[in-house]
């Protein structure tokens, strides 16, 4: 049985669009911030894991070392779609559990700028001569012809499938998710957007991919987040204050999507989330009712709704009632995305899976200021990347 693992320090940059900073500036700010928050330096680290998606082959971890300290430690550059940051964190945790490191740094960073909201292929206006290519023998980009490859559309369909299978779920329930998260964001100075909207405004905003309107989609943006992870034995050698502010990682789980019949035409985001959270609850000895706050992957409003069910926060099939009854609002019994969520806080992809750990840790430490959830003791973070990859962490406050 390996020792328990803790968050010693954590930091996130404001999520926004930075004109005058590069990804390295953001990664440095987050890394130095997390180290300072933990009362340690890069020279105390035994491992560095760096998560970034668009610059995945750029050796961001080593670039960061060259900026803040080249100490010769092993560096892992990882990517896992929207679960990239969580994978970096997991890698450091794994290294400590393997006895290879006592303390390590995980950094997630992304600079997306104004790259536009949508994925999906584009067709050349004029083809030359049709020639089947690729694993589907396609003669042109099929995006928009054989269904959508855009993220708002894919997650719209994931939500609509839930609506097809369960009563009481429709456009209005999805819209309420965005209304909630935008309202929450007004208390978070690190959020990319901090503006409240009425349910009517959310529903009336320009349609992106029905039922997701523009205000129900996360923006692109830039940002970074970092966490210093430490094994229990080493933690006990540090100061009382460091120990009191440390946050226990009670569970850390990464899963991929097992085979399901429909998975070949649209990646399944449900089964692997259920598998991850069930393993995490068991590892932590925690039940959904024990959670004081949850930061889950609301890349689109439709996604948040189905994850209420996947994360066992509501009765099976009851996600519509769950949002209607106000439970996931910050004054409800299971506050979800009090940071504003990806929809308002932003979603610089590599940073997201550590930024949610920053958010929950900050509440568990009682340091969340205006948006503090009172007496928060246990929290859960969740990210999912299409393809698919899901990361779940359960965090607990240190005993006083």
């Amino acid at each position, binding site marked *: 049985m390996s020792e328990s693992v803790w968050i010693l320090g954590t930091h996130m940059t404001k999520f926004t669009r930075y004109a005058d900073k590069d990804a390295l500036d953001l990664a440095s700010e987050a890394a130095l911030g997390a180290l300072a928050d933990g009362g340690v330096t890069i020279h105390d680290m035994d491992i560095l894991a760096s998560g970034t998606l668009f610059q995945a082959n750029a050796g961001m971890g080593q670039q960061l070392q060259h900026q803040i300290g080249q100490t010769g430690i092993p560096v892992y550059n990882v990517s896992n779609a929207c679960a990239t940051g969580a994978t970096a964190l997991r890698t450091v945790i794994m290294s400590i559990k393997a006895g290879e490191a006592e303390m390590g740094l995980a950094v997630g960073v992304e600079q997306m700028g104004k790259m536009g*909201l*949508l994925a*999906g*292929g*584009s*067709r*050349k*206006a*004029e*083809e*030359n*001569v*049709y020639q*089947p290519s690729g*694993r*589907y*023998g*396609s*003669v*042109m980009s*099929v*995006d*928009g*012809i*054989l*269904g*959508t490859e*855009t993220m*708002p*559309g*894919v997650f*719209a*369909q*994931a939500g*609509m*499938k839930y*609506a*097809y299978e369960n009563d009481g779920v429709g*456009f209005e329930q999805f819209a309420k998710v965005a209304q909630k998260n935008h309202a929450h964001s007004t208390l978070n100075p690190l959020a990319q957007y901090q503006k409240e909207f009425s349910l009517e405004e959310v529903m009336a905003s*320009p*349609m*992106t*991919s*029905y*039922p*997701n309107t523009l205000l129900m989609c996360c923006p692109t943006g830039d940002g970074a987040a970092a966490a210093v992870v430490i094994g229990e034995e080493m933690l006990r050698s540090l100061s009382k204050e460091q120990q009191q502010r440390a946050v226990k990682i009670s569970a850390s789980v990464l899963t991929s999507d097992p*085979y399901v*019949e*429909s*998975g*070949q*035409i*649209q990646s399944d985001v449900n089964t692997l989330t259920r598998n991850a959270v069930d393993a995490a609850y068991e590892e932590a000895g925690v039940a959904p009712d024990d959670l004081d706050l949850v930061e889950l992957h609301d890349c689109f409003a439709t996604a948040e709704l189905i994850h209420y069910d996947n994360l066992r926060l509501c009765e099976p099939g009851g996600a519509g009632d769950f949002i209607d009854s106000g439970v996931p609002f910050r004054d409800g019994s299971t506050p979800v995305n009090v940071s504003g969520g990806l929809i308002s806080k932003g979603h610089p992809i590599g940073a997201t899976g550590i930024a949610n750990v920053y958010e929950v840790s900050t509440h568990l430490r009682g340091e969340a200021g205006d948006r503090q959830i009172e007496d928060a003791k246990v929290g859960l973070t969740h990210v999912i990347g299409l393809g698919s990859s899901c990361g779940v962490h359960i965090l607990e406050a240190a005993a006083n």
Partner: protein
Amino acid sequence: MNQDSAPAPTEIPIVDYLVLGDDPHLVANQCTNCGARFFNRRNACAHCGGTNFEKATVANQGVLEAFSIVYRAAPTIPVPYVSAIVKTQDGTSVRSNVVNTPADPEHVKLGMQVSLTTYEVGQDDRGTRCIAFGYEPVDQ
């Protein structure tokens, strides 16, 4: 050049799992071990690991299990269009557009019956017509 002697423009399916002809339909690579169906070229089966596949005809009738009406897309893609996940009568999930009906939630309904249809989506410099497939609502 004499037009009469020019070869008639030929057709090509947009993807190789669409079979054209008198009765257009989809064909899947079906694992002979577990029956899992795939539309793409395979190295092995994602379900059971088997490496033997046979061609299986996919039913043209199905039910609309999920959809999205897409308004924002790459500049060359006409919007709005209806992206859909269809479950065919033989239990195969297919992704394509819903066509031949207005792109709004009043006409596109979860659970509605649909049927495969084909249409031209372009021609190349040699006059070859690219044929795609979509699903249209079935009157009940």
